[in-house]
């Protein structure tokens, strides 16, 4: 049952550009980028239980580094994307070293402050980011191949998303993933079990930033322009919402949350005057009646139907 559903989804992903317009493919590109952002947040919050709210900043670092490297130095896009991810991870490690002395709300607010400060840097560092004029991103390229349209970029966005998904599953199954979860359940117990708590936290933080940076790189594959306006706290909150509504702590939840919530947001564009109220109500209702996320809710309902 599950395998059929997965195969169906895969077939749909592959076939998408053949029977839809560039608009739908653009949406798919954007949603897959957000999926990778969600996977990053899943690692740090869902797996390791550390509240990092600087996701938009790492995403922005990824976009600017990948965008500038591709546009000004003509690097092939896999290299640009990797550079974006590594740059974000490095910044993440530096911030993490300082921030991870804090816990809970303090960590959340310190990373929030860092995120806001980074948005300010993006807006005011004119020489590098173009400041308020934004930054134009040249089409991504690889061995003379130029990704000009959404359909060109799509296969590479899909492949990147799958690589990052695979990486998430690997991390989750590896020893490091287990130590993340031990950390989430109880720091004291994790320490008692011999897990190097600070190192594990830092690893989660750095990996999450790496994912966000790669997501930024993915964005540069199909976008021609970035403005600091899109790199604020609202983006972080959108990702957090996707992860929580999908189901905090499960990979499927992070992926599903990104896609379902991304689609809801796009559909709400058709109901402008009610969208904020609708969006808020959806959030509240989810938290009231589907606290473990969309998928737990659905499988719970399905189970009940099946077993009477």
């Amino acid at each position, binding site marked *: 049952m599950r395998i059929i559903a997965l195969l169906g989804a895969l077939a749909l992903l592959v076939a998408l550009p053949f029977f839809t317009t560039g608009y739908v493919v653009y949406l798919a590109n954007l949603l897959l980028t957000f999926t990778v952002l969600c996977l990053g947040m899943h690692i740090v919050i869902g797996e390791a239980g550390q509240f990092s709210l600087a996701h938009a900043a790492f995403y922005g670092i990824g976009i600017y580094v990948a965008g500038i490297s591709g546009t000004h130095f003509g690097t092939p896009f896999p290299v640009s994307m990797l550079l974006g991810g590594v740059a974000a991870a490095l910044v993440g490690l530096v911030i993490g070293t300082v921030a991870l002395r804090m816990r809970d709300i303090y960590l959340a607010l310190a990373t929030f402050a860092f995120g806001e400060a980074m948005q300010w840097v993006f807006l005011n560092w004119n020489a590098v980011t173009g400041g308020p004029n934004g930054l134009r991103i040249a089409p991504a390229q690889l061995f003379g191949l130029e990704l000009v349209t959404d359909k060109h970029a799509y296969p590479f966005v899909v492949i990147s998303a799958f690589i990052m998904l695979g990486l998430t599953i690997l991390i989750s199954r590896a020893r490091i993933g287990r130590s993340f979860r031990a950390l989430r359940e109880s720091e004291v117990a994790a320490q008692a079990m011999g897990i190097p708590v600070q190192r594990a936290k830092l690893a989660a933080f750095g990996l999450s930033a790496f994912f966000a940076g790669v997501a930024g790189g993915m964005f540069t594959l199909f976008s021609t322009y970035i403005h600091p306006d899109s790199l604020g706290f609202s983006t972080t909150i959108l990702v*957090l919402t996707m992860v929580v509504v999908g189901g905090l702590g499960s990979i499927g939840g992070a992926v599903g949350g990104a896609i379902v919530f991304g689609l809801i947001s796009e559909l709400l564009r058709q109901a402008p005057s009610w969208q904020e109220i609708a969006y808020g109500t959806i959030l*509240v209702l989810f938290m009231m009646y589907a606290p473990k996320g969309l998928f737990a809710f659905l499988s719970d309902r399905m189970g009940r139907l099946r077993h009477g």
Partner: protein
Amino acid sequence: MDFDLFLLFLQQGIVSGLVVGSVYALLALSIVMIFKTSEVPNFAAGEVFMAAGYCALFLLVFQHMPLWVAIPVTLVASFIVAALFRRGVLKQVAKASGSPVNLVIATLGLSYVLKGLVRRTGFGDTPRSFPALISTDSIMIGQASITKLDLSIFITAILVMAAVFWMFAYTKVGRAMRAVGMNPKAAQLMGVDLERIHMLVWGLAAVISAIAALLISPKILMTAEMGSIVTMAFAAAIVGGFMSLPGAVVGGFVIGITENFVGLFISSRAIVVAPFVAIMLVLILRPQGLFGGKFAIKKV
């Protein structure tokens, strides 16, 4: 910069910083009150503040009600809406999951709903104000000029803070609130009605936000986005340690003065980023904030 100008900037920066800091302090108080008792950072605090402002605007300007009707109605309405949200929504969310992040997302949902509702009235776009409750004539303190309204904002913040202290420290209900914050199970065993206390805290926090809105809407002007000022209140709360009521107030002053000094002595462009740098500096130097006690590990 010559020395006279420096002195003028210094005085005006402190005075204006204290005034705008009082506003941050009031909102920070409301955030910290709720956080102390239920460990939920209330992401809707700014929108509760905004909605209360619009409620007052509607009553005063569009219904032409006298002050003595409009003010109590605004305060009571804020109390009821917040208490009902706790009772009707958050209770269910807490029961369903208990994870703080779910509660946070629920408050985020409320913030969207409130913003959407205010926008649907059609009054949310143009910046508005209602007549200031207190005169805006200027007075001089040293070389610094402030208005009587500014002065009363400052005094009110101090009075509200004192009242909240007194309540938490000396009244039965305040002690019950503290008990719920420290150990809800034990408090319940001692006969405290948990839900009643939570509703009361949410209601009172909303009343404080509403007082802030009544005082400063004429000063910062109202739009549906005015709730974003809550970011500064979070900054104030975190500088003060997030668990400490006096900390929240001092934090408000620190942030207010920092903003003004950065604007005056560094750059106007950097005003917006100053609070975030302040948060980071404070947390790096003292990870539990200026007034936070030693952090106790709760989960074992």
